């Protein structure tokens, strides 16, 4: 294990504490108007979590509507490719957890389904969400259509322009998409605007946050809903190989797919865990979205975590080719796992992700989203350093349909 304050704990799965902290990260840094709401939400969620009827209902929708469990797939040709690059005896067997096969094409819906069932249980009648690339917006609009609830999605005006197909999808699903022009018109501004809506419509509105960040209980709740990924993967791996993987990897923006995969493995000390942030044009250029590798702790959007910021504490714009990783913060549990050294955080550049986008399509017949393409970039390196009798599991958290047009434009220019 690595990390500045590396320490061995009996369990890494106990957090958060009653104040919503993972170590010093997390918490509830919201305006007083919202405090009663996040406290109510926490209470309602804890009750739902321990209610078998709620869990049964969620499991049923995940199976019949979302299409879970998602398959565990042995990426045979990618493995052969890696072994071709490796020293003799090296080159781990690579598996994909195929969350890109979920309804709506990404892991986002695991969380949206959980949160909308909770919203219904709490008697909320209006749903709001923020979105960057539009994947979380589409997933939210989808569950809102399914349950007949009005849905308002805040999206940075820049992203509305860049992600037209997803904007159309959301509208088709009956959602109202509000372009956000305040601030710098990106994902973080969309989140600010959603918080402003929530603070104004406190009585009837439920805010479905899309990543494992925000004020407590969101980081815990989103993690719990996404942990279905890791629980399934663990059982499937035992069935396929009779043992756990030697390493698991996932990409990190806010970090919801990653914490969902990682959390069930945190106490399996033989399993190495690696998260991959977006290095954009390169960490040294300052044009990236790697909060853990290139940021420092601060407070934004209701939680204390690693943030991209300047010396005055002003939040810097993130940059990534992948709109889904384009966020200047990261979930607080990742911040803590980074500090205690249980998870190793690496990064991959725009160009590396682009190459993997193409390589995975060519070798496996799977067009990955640009987000997991970042994880694949480091996975290919990692697998080469591992023995050929070892197993590496990568979360393929989204499919690349949404990215084909922007990738086409980029490749055309080269």
């Amino acid at each position, binding site marked *: 294990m690595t990390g500045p304050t590396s320490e061995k704990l009996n369990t890494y799965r106990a957090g958060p504490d009653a104040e919503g902290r993972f170590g010093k990260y997390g918490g509830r840094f919201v305006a007083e108007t919202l*405090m009663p709401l996040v406290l109510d939400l926490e209470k309602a969620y804890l009750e739902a979590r321990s209610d078998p009827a709620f869990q049964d209902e969620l499991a049923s929708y995940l199976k019949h509507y979302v299409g879970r469990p998602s398959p565990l797939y042995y990426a045979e040709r990618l493995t052969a490719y890696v072994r071709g690059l490796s020293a003799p005896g090296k080159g781990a067997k690579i598996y994909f957890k195929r969350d890109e096969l979920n309804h709506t094409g990404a892991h986002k819906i695991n969380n949206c389904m959980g949160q909308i069932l909770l919203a219904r249980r709490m008697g909320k009648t209006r749903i709001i969400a923020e979105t960057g690339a539009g994947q979380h917006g589409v997933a939210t609009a989808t569950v809102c259509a399914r349950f007949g609830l009005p849905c308002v999605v805040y999206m940075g005006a820049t992203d509305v322009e860049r992600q037209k197909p997803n904007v159309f999808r959301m509208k088709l699903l009956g959602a109202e998409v509000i372009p956000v022009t*305040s601030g710098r018109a990106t994902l973080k501004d969309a989140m*600010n605007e959603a918080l402003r809506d929530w*603070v104004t419509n406190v009585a009837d509105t439920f805010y479905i946050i899309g990543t494992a960040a925000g004020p407590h209980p969101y980081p815990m709740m989103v993690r719990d809903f996404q942990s279905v990924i890791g629980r399934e993967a663990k059982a499937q791996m035992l069935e396929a190989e009779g043992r756990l993987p030697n390493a698991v990897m996932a990409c990190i923006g806010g970090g919801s797919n990653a914490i969902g995969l990682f959390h069930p493995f945190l106490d399996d000390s033989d399993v190495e865990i690696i998260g991959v942030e977006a290095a954009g044009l390169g960490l040294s250029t300052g044009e990236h979205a790697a909060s853990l590798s290139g940021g420092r702790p601060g407070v934004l*959007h209701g939680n204390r975590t690693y943030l991209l910021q300047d010396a005055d504490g002003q939040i810097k714009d993130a940059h990534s080719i992948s709109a889904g990783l384009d966020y200047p913060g990261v979930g607080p549990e990742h911040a803590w796992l980074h500090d205690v050294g249980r998870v190793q955080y690496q990064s991959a550049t725009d160009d590396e992700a682009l190459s993997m986008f193409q390589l995975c399509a060519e070798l496996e017949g799977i067009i990955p989203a640009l987000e997991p393409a970042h994880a694949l970039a480091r996975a290919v390196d990692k697998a080469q350093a591992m023995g050929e009798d070892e197993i590496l599991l990568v979360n393929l958290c989204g499919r690349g349909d949404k990215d084909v047009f922007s990738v086409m434009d980029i490749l055309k220019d080269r």
Partner: protein
Amino acid sequence: MTRIADRFAKLAHERRAAFVPFIMAGDPDYETSLALLKALPGAGADVIELGVCFTDPMADGPAIQAAGLRALKSGQTLKKTLAMVRTFRQQDDETPIILMGYYNPVCAYGPADFVRDAKAAGVDGLIVVDLPPEEDAELRLPARAEGLDFIRLATPTTDARRLPMVVKNASGFLYYVSVAGITGKAAGETQAVAAAAARLRAASGLPVAVGFGIKTKEKARDIAKVADAVVVGSALVERLASSLAQSRGKSDIVVKSVLSLARDISGAVRAPREE
């Protein structure tokens, strides 16, 4: 006694509410903003709220968001905001100054260094929007140790269950956010505000300032009858923005225009209470 306590004692004696203008430090630039700050007491400001700009002001409406962006663009930092207060104090040692903003710039400065430097500069109190009572000990305790007031916010969603916790460690005054929402939207109904102000005063023993959405003289006059202080922010900031556009950035015209609105509103707030 602190400057805040002195000021509210004096106003209680005069049987009138305080006029509390809000301006964003560094909006539209350091010099204009400093000139405005220096002239506000002369235009009737009893207490001044000075905004600390932040890239992500999640409780603010469009007017104050835009003010923050103008300040950031002109190069304003928390350090410069403290320098502004220090300069102001060379001419005015009585008008209380409250810094209002978000936690991250303070975090980046370092809470202990910040409260020391703020006190030395002549700041009297702090309002940090995203530090609710559950999270504020890390700044409130060092602030109180330095003799800075830590001003708590109460809102329409602060119910009877939460109120004791909100008032428990409050100091200076209590800031009542008159509507559930962001800055600059419509203010709460005067009757509801009156009831809330009375409830908060009784629970805290502190003066109650009312803000968020008070944009006209009429509304300011109404609220002044039921509260101990009337905070006006978005209206002044909007005036600044429009005069900035009309005068093509002429600093003296901008200052004059904002002061004239401040004078109007302060006149309404100062109108003697009828009872």
